């Protein structure tokens, strides 16, 4: 260990001296070392896969908790621990966004803790809990996106604050929840606040100085979106028309047009492109986003962006849902996977999307290759038109067609999405994607809403119910599935009582791991989903299961601590609409299983 530590110190020192070192070279090195877990998603491609195989199908039943650590924070704990080879785990918490360095060799002794001083008035504008999806690391520095829109860099060695940068304004409803990504010596981070009429943007800061290098907005004129209609591609062709980020909105609405890119960012070093999705358009009332009474695309909300990492210029865009009518926030992670399709090698990009569709795109051109339902109850669109790349919407479930102040019922999936932010895993051994899924539908009633700066700008109410029982999952609100991204088919699926809101992990030990809202960490056989091991942590899991090896021993580590949108929606259970008024919820209430509280649990095999 001391050698690794020494080596890291040297690397960090060289980086500091030369100034020109590329942070991504450091990260590329770290991600290629299978003992480490240096990025929240495991690697730049977002695969959440580990080549470690000490823990495998034959011995996983012996896995036991070696130590636990309470973060002292009650809110929902998303994200997970980082291990960069220096004998410590680096973890974070929801607001107040504490950062801990914990000594692995001393069962989690606190080496240092950092707690920023933040205005608590940011808390009430964080619509779906004060979550944070974790730290980023590069060249001896840790990077954090604080709730109050401050991006900070800390020295990993001692937690000293190196720089801070202001990324937004909470009095306008902006906040931050995402985990930054470090690419080419830049810290890339987006804002949150899609329910407060913010204007989404993604920004690159210099990793050494905190100076802003570029910012690309999700809406507005091309010069601010960083898009060139003659060179930026859409479905393989140039976008063509200028300033669609203005013209596809009613007058001025793009300024409060949402598209907050609060999810995960992935990166292809060969193409030097970053990939991320923008969130839902401004108000949830589609009528207020129509132009001359007709649906308008509201570009570039719910759009996958491929941007040049150095300049921010958009290489291609793909709008998954033009003119959203369901809050199908488009931020889900873009997994970069190389696939064989019709005998041809393709650089693919796979998405298990909010919409209930699994997408496969060509990540060089943005061309749509596959769009198939992974959640069979999905009914808002019958299918995607593969020529135009647009969904074919079912008017029965179109909240715009049904109208303002009309309660459109039984739309699947719910606004939470058939999958929310919980990042999936891709195993290069099986070629499959593994993901936690929500099996929940909704009624959606849009209403007129007026914009007030810093106040919620929602404009629809929704009620949720479990997906219909004819999927063989009566009373179940979640599942964990293996998905074939090329065939567009579910390979296997296991039921869960609640939506599965935790990030998945696969390993070379032929295992897939995930957490449940009741608080179980589970290991299943990667071949068929058979459960092989489980452990109940003290609170529900909305964090991600990570793995690493230290001093020859493989560990599994996870943050538990229920919360997030799942905690808000499912705490007291859902009702069965068929039961009529006054029915006691026939579906399980999360509050019967778990309570709040952030805990890190670290597992290993016995010596």
């Amino acid at each position, binding site marked *: 260990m001391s050698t690794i530590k020494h080596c890291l110190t040297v690397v960090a020192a060289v980086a500091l001296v030369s100034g020109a070192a590329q942070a991504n070279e450091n990260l590329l090195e770290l991600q290629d070392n299978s003992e480490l877990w240096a990025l929240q998603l495991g690697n730049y491609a977002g695969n959440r896969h580990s080549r470690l195989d000490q823990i495998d199908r034959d011995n996983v039943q012996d896995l036991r908790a070696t130590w636990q650590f309470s973060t002292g924070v009650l809110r929902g704990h998303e994200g997970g621990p980082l291990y960069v080879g220096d004998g410590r785990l680096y973890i974070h918490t929801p607001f107040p966004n504490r950062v801990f360095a914990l000594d692995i060799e001393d069962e989690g002794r606190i080496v240092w803790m950092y707690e920023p001083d933040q205005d608590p008035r940011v808390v009430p504008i964080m619509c779906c809990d004060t979550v944070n999806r974790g730290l980023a690391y590069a060249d001896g520095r840790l990077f954090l996106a604080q709730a109050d829109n401050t991006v900070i860099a800390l020295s990993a060695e001692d937690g000293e604050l190196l720089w801070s940068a202001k990324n937004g304004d909470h009095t306008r409803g902006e906040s931050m929840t995402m985990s930054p990504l470090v690419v080419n010596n830049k810290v890339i981070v987006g804002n949150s606040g899609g329910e407060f009429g913010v204007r989404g943007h993604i920004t690159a800061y210099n990793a050494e100085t905190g100076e802003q290098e570029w910012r690309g907005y999700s809406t507005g004129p091309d010069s601010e979106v960083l898009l060139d209609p003659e060179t930026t591609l859409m479905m393989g062709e140039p976008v063509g028309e200028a300033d669609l980020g203005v013209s596809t909105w009613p007058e001025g609405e793009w300024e409060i047009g949402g598209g907050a890119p609060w999810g995960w960012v992935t990166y292809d070093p060969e193409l030097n492109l970053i990939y991320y999705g923008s969130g839902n358009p401004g108000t949830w009332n589609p009528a207020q986003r129509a132009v001359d009474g007709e649906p308008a695309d509201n570009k570039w909300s719910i759009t996958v962006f491929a941007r040049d990492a150095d300049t921010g210029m958009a290489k291609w865009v793909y709008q998954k849902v033009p003119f959203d009518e369901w809050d199908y926030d488009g931020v889900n992670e873009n997994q970069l996977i190389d696939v064989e399709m019709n005998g041809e090698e393709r650089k693919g990009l796979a998405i298990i999307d909010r919409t209930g569709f699994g997408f496969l795109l060509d990540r060089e051109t943005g061309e749509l290759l596959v769009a198939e339902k992974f959640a069979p109850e999905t009914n808002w669109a019958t299918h995607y038109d593969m020529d135009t790349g647009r969904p074919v919407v079912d008017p029965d479930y179109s909240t715009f067609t049904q109208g303002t102040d009309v309660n459109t019922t039984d739309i699947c999936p719910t606004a939470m999405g058939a999958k929310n932010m919980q990042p999936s895993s891709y195993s290069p051994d099986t070629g499959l994607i593994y993901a936690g899924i929500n099996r929940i539908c909704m009624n959606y009633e849009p209403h007129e809403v007026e914009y007030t700066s810093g106040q*919620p700008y929602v404009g629809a*109410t929704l009620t949720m119910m479990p997906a219909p029982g004819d999927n063989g999952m009566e009373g179940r609100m979640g599942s964990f599935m293996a998905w074939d991204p090329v065939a567009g088919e579910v390979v296997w699926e296991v039921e869960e009582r609640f939506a599965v809101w935790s990030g998945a992990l696969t390993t070379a030990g032929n295992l897939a791991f995930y957490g449940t809202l009741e608080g179980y960490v589970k290991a299943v056989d990667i071949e068929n989903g058979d459960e092989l091991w489980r452990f109940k942590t003290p609170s529900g899991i909305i964090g991600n299961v990570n793995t690493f090896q230290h001093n020859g021993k493989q560990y599994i580590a996870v943050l538990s601590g229920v919360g997030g949108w799942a905690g808000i929606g499912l705490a*007291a259970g859902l009702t069965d609409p068929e039961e009529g008024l006054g029915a006691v919820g026939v579906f399980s209430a999360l509050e019967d299983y778990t309570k709040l509280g952030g805990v890190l649990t670290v597992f290993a095999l016995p010596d």
Partner: protein
Amino acid sequence: MRTKQKQAAVVCAVAALALFMLAGKIAISNEEPRYRVEDGKVDDNIFRGYQAYTRACMACHGPDGVGSSFAPSLLRAAERRTFAEFARTVAEGQEIQPGQVMPSFSDDAFVMEHVSDIYTYLSARAAGDLGRGRPQRIEEDE
């Protein structure tokens, strides 16, 4: 529509109205809440209260007042608090502990206009006169 002056004027007027209503309600706070539920259908006050609740409160306090992992259940709120106390909490907000904050809604014209309806809705929920979900309005067709 987004001029600040106009907003300020509206907020002032609503705040004054809310205070006025609040003063008026204190006198009747010991009486039975005034609402009508017939065959599971509800009067306009409850229905408006349901709508206002789902628009303004549900995001934290969960669907139908049942609470969430983020904020407590309000099912008993109307039983445990007088209307005056309830309205004051909504207007002023609360800081329970760092990181656990209820915002002040005094600047939110929509919420302040509907505080009384929300209280009525929660009263019907507390009394067990109204179950979960979107209620039907009495004579909804009209």
